């Protein structure tokens, strides 16, 4: 049970906030109660943490991001070059690997983070959130709208955050079931394989088009953007580079396609671990109306999950393995998240809040568990049994 009680005795009950098994909790059956003062204190602590990090930003962060960019460009050039020797299969395979890594770095540690404005403070024309484009078919401006604004502002609010199931999956018991969702595992697999195309179509709001709520007028400007962006990407990976490799046209084409596929599988897996593992809470529109900054912070913490791993793993996940820190501070350079994580976890521990983290396979497994479970109606599989967190809402929200 996840209950939010309002100051006028209003109580809103939510049922999907299982505390992560490892989360230390005082007492066992008692709900965690956050008073208004607690929430404002958490807000102040997190604000201070942010200010402390902002004050540190400088040459070190600049060097870091340029080193990542150099590594990415190096891998890309090496990968493209290796496509010229398909008659040496190990080299060709290494090339596919290098190009996959290049695309992963480009999309995750560079693109996603730069487009969040994490490096805008550098005032560098190549790293401005307004201008940056990434090596995928999704146009940056569409992504910035649906992701930076909609998803990061309304994180895990059912009905507002389209990242809950991306409009095609059922990932929360509060999404109404219908027979279409029997295909949940199939749709999820397709989304995984075609991930970059799914991301591109995200702004289309396919479910609204199907229901006739969006027409050609809304879709046309998006389609123009896709044509321009995806056209160039397709031309590069499936025409220009294969053609340049002359007799090796087909193997280069296959290699480039494989690199895009590897990136798709990886990005999908990391991103689905951000908000879908068991224990992550979702929220309703009423309970989040007129939130204070402190309440917003608490929702971000309850609505995100981390993945534990090595430093290299974190870089390759674009530090989205620190989804909790990312959601608290989406505009701080992501490579700072690892140093923030213990401090955030400490805050959670002191207030008895869950800090959802786990190894990659555990989190991925938990996500797929949900995909299968919510393919079926709640009446068959029930709602996950979860402990309570009680949040006292600020007076403004009454």
């Amino acid at each position, binding site marked *: 049970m996840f209950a939010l009680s309002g100051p006028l005795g209003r109580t809103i009950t939510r049922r999907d906030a299982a505390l992560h098994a490892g989360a230390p909790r005082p007492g066992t059956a008692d709900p965690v109660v956050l008073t208004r003062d607690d929430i404002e204190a958490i807000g102040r602590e997190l604000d201070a943490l942010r*200010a402390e990090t902002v004050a540190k930003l400088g*040459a070190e962060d600049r060097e870091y991001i340029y080193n990542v*960019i150099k590594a990415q460009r190096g891998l890309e050039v090496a990968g493209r070059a290796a496509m010229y020797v398909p008659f040496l299969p190990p080299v060709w395979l290494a090339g596919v690997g290098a190009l996959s890594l290049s695309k992963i770095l480009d999309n995750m540690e560079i693109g996603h983070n730069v487009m969040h*404005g994490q490096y*805008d403070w550098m005032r560098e*024309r190549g790293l*401005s959130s307004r201008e940056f484009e990434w090596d995928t078919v999704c146009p940056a401006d569409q992504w*910035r709208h649906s992701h930076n604004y909609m998803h*990061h502002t309304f994180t895990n609010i059912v009905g507002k955050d389209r990242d809950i199931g991306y409009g095609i999956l059922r990932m929360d018991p509060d999404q109404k079931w219908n027979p279409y969702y029997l295909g949940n595992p199939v749709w999820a697999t397709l989304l995984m394989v075609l991930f970059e195309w799914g991301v591109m179509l995200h702004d289309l709001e396919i479910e609204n088009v199907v229901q006739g709520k969006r027409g050609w007028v809304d879709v046309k400007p998006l389609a123009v953007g896709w044509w321009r962006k995806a056209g160039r990407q397709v031309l*590069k990976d499936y025409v220009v580079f294969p053609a340049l490799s002359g007799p090796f046209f087909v193997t280069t084409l296959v290699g480039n396609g494989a690199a895009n596929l590897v990136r798709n599988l990886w990005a999908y897996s990391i991103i689905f671990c951000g908000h879908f593992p068991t224990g992550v809470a979702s929220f309703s529109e009423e309970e989040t109306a007129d939130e204070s900054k402190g309440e917003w912070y608490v929702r971000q913490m309850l609505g995100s999950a981390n993945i534990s791993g090595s430093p290299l793993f974190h870089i390759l996940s674009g530090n989205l393995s620190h989804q909790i820190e990312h959601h608290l501070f989406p505009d701080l350079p992501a490579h700072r998240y690892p140093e923030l994580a213990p401090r955030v976890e400490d805050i959670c521990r002191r207030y008895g809040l869950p800090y959802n983290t786990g190894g990659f396979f555990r989190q991925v497994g938990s996500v797929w568990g949900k995909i299968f479970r919510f393919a079926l109606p709640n009446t068959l599989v029930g709602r996950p049994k979860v402990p309570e967190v009680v949040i006292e809402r600020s007076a403004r929200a009454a």
Partner: protein
Amino acid sequence: MTDIIAGGKRRVPLLRRFVGLAEAMATPHGVDRYTELIAPTVTVNDLRAQVTAVRREGDRSVTLSLRPTRQWRGFRAGQFVRVGVVVDGVRHTRCFSPCGSEHGADGRLELTVKAHPSGLVSQELLERARPGLMVDLAQAAGEFHLPMPRPRDIVLISAGSGITPVLAMLRTLVDERHDGRVAFLHYVRRPEELVHAQELRRLAAARGVAVIVGCTAADGAGDVDGHFSAGHLALAAPWVRGAQAYLCGPARMMAAVREVYDGMGLGARLHTEAFDAAPAAVPSDDEVHGTVTFSASGIDAANTGDVLLEQAEAAGLSPEHGCRMGICFSCTAVRRSGCTRNALTGEADAEPDQPIQLCINRPVGDVDIVV
């Protein structure tokens, strides 16, 4: 052959085709984002420059020679350029007037930078500039330059760092073997503050050129004593009535020159360039005052002290925005001039032409926002 068949369509030059292919290969980042990592002087679109020589004069000034990339279109003596320099990870942009001749060797640029104690960029250049350093560069701009054709007689007046645009004019005129009369009247406080002293001595030897240096705080050290006066002008250019004058210096000195010229009825012959002795200071008081100019919409409003997004909306505008809490960057707009304070960090910033987030920045005094 194909050209004729295609109805005389112009042939795409080989280089352009090559660049087009390179861009298709580098999409979506652009070729420059690759070359900058290994050969920053090779660019397809970006204009930047490499420092080729550094000469420090006195303890406060540094003169840099720059070689711009091929996009550089040159400048007219008196104009300024924007130079972007990285200081502690952040690229800061400042305006400098090149002080070399328009006809300098192979398009080189020469900048003399005087370090202000609080000047982030000038200090950085004074202390750390060395050959090989890359800086960002923008094409020259500014209306303050010698007209074409050149006026016959020309008076150049400057003080302190204001020397750079008029020195460029003097050097250009000497290079052009200008056959009219030229007077160069320049002020420093003390003789050791004079930059380009040797060069000035050399130029003074040119036919028809009078160079007079005044020292305002050290009697007897210069050619004339004290601040600018009508007497100095008469000494430097007895023919002043028929000449065009170009003036650059600190505000007080410019006002003094303006007064003398207006008094002689020669105001229309005086062309000026204001120059700030120090970078725009951040006001320390937090009193709410000033005007917010939304320059893209032509609307002015009195500063209410609210964040800019709310002030814009109160003025009837609807700038793009999202979260209204500083996380999504949808509300980013360019602050053309003025100072704003970030409501989250409390930090104030006054660098011109910088993008800022409207939803978390409050104006401090007059601000111009491109909305």
